[in-house]
């Protein structure tokens, strides 16, 4: 390239090369970092827009888990009398509902994110990965709001706060990255197969039953425990109860969750990067 020395000012340097897509692409972390502000803006847009034009606004972030807790407490706590490891059933299930709802929301949000951003994908370039990433984060705002209720409940039920609570962010991260891993898979699949939007509600419903949200994992027979532990959300929910309520224990099963999470995210990213080149053509 003889011209490069002739270039003026900011344009000197390596050119951007545009070439046909060639199979598997490496993750371009440098570029993602360059666009980090866009990640912030897209997240911020989702947060801003979500409760606009709703009469109750951010109250919904509280209403949803609280009402679910009430229903669960009546059906599973009162009627079915499921054991709750010695803590009052409402706080037992609410502690699990928070990470669960964060996960379920983030999962469905990111699965539909690419298709929902058609106009962006077909009109402007930026790393497409930002779209599912940005749709995982707004759930944290709801989480924070509904967490306030949890703090209130802990005071009410006189559950002591211990240093274990400091590990919460780790479990939160596990939930978010698992949601992202699946969200990345499903959002890319959704571009080509619109069946995905019908799959997601079922997926989250079944997944909730496979996660000890409404019941205690002590109900699961010992021989099934390992299989049960393959669900990263089991690790998250048990981690929450362990950190906040001091119940159960977090052990080797958690590492299985982490491995599963890494596999989900890694394969999701690889698939996403491979399909990325054709998004604008098929979306």
């Amino acid at each position: 390239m003889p011209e490069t020395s002739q270039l003026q000012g900011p344009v000197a340097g390596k050119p951007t090369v545009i070439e046909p897509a060639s199979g598997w692409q490496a993750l371009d972390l440098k570029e993602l970092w360059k666009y980090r502000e866009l990640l912030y803006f897209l997240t911020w847009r989702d947060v801003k827009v979500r409760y606009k034009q709703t009469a109750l606004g951010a109250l919904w972030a509280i209403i949803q888990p609280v009402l679910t807790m009430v229903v669960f407490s009546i059906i599973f706590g009162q009627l079915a009398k499921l054991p709750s490891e010695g803590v009052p059933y409402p706080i037992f299930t609410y502690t699990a509902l928070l990470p669960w709802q964060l996960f379920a929301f983030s999962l469905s949000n990111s699965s539909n994110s690419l298709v929902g951003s058609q106009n962006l994908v077909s009109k402007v370039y930026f790393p497409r990965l930002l779209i599912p990433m940005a749709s995982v984060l707004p759930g944290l705002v709801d989480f924070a709001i509904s967490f306030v209720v949890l703090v209130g409940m802990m005071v009410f039920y006189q559950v002591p706060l211990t240093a274990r609570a400091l590990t919460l962010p780790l479990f939160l991260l596990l939930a978010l990255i698992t949601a992202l891993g699946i969200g990345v898979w499903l959002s890319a699949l959704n571009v080509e197969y619109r069946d995905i939007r019908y799959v997601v509600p079922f997926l989250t419903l079944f997944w909730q039953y496979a996660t000890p949200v409404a019941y205690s994992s002590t109900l699961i027979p010992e021989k099934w425990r390992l299989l049960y532990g393959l669900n990263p959300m089991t690790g998250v929910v048990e981690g929450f109860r362990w950190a906040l309520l001091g119940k159960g224990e977090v052990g080797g099963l958690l590492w299985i969750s982490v491995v599963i999470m890494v596999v989900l995210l890694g394969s999701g990213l690889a698939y996403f990067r491979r399909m990325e080149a054709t998004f604008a053509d098929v979306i």
Partner: protein
Amino acid sequence: MNGIAIRAEHLSKKYHIGGQQAGYKTARESLMNLLSGSAGFLRRERLEQEIIWALDDVSFELRHGEAVGVIGRNGAGKSTLLKILSRITKPTMGRAEIFGRVGSLLEVGTGFHGELTGRENIFLSGAILGMHRAEIARKFDEIVSFAGVEKFLDTPIKFYSSGMYVRLAFAVAAYLEPDILLVDEVLAVGDIEFQKKCLRKMADLSAGQGRTVLLVSHQMPMIQRLATRCILLDRGRVSEEGTPETVITHYLNTGDETSTEWLFAEHDTEMKSAPSFILRRFALVDEQGRMLPRSIDVSSPAYVLIEGDVKQPDMRLNVGFNVVDGLGNPLMMSYHTDQPEASWPDLSTGKLKLMAQVDFSLFNEGEYKMEFICGLHTIKMFYAQGDSDIALTFEIPGNYHVSPYWVKRRDTLLSPLLEWKTVG
């Protein structure tokens, strides 16, 4: 000589157009495709025909500081080219190198969200177009004043008028200040004053600040004013490259329509379908219906003739024509339904022959193009203005001057010969 800004080598882009228009499929279709392997080769044969090359071996170079216009008919590959250069989609073959920061404006208001305020949208849209937060904050006041939306900064933009929306959207993109700006047809919207302002801004970007502009437009005057060079695309290929004047004149005056008469040919399979009306003849004629020469004599009466078959009588059917000058400035448009309803010609059955007299003495000296337009009122256009492939060309010669004073071409769109009298 400045360095290279864009170097495109053999860029090609293939699209499959399947039975259904949409690109996405359902899992069922994919499964069926897998299962029906036995019928596979039949399918493949059919699919072969549904491939189009939107870009076919396109190569060119742009230097820094150049403003290049890309013109061509619809489907010539202009937008595909911009999409590839702005990295929205990848080429099927070939390669391009881009030296410098690229800003692309393929749509007005990319990333705008109706629920957000003007202020919020400036930041959001700016970030989507690739600006940093600090950069947007620095240019914020300029963007706002360019768009003229100071009073509505904290109003959600869903309440903006379309003019305000477009102004704000362009302002954000204009202050992106990329080294290379790719613009697609976005200025077709907005009022004339604002279009001029945008043009000045783009001219300032290219000529004033030495930035590179690649502009796709149907508006030839805009290309002419802004571009230093022009590329004509035809069916995915570069068919001509040169100064805007030569390429535009060539583009408007060649093609299939080189005369004052257009006749329907049965074998013409590429014709778009207008189910309600089949055009048989579109021509400029004299009183007796004889085709006029390409060079129009403005002193004798001239008529536009539209002849064809009405297939489905429809109250909403509109036929007419429009005229653009050699640089693409729209001059006039006329429909058979312009008059009060009682005096509309009857289009209800079978064969139809319409004539309308046109006063060519209003026209200035120059080259003109007359397009056939036809559509169902408020429903759809079969042949739309600027997008009709049925067109005539004619010329108003410069030798009809009757005044001893005024013999040069007037630098105006029209040049009517009016009768001046003293009164009172």
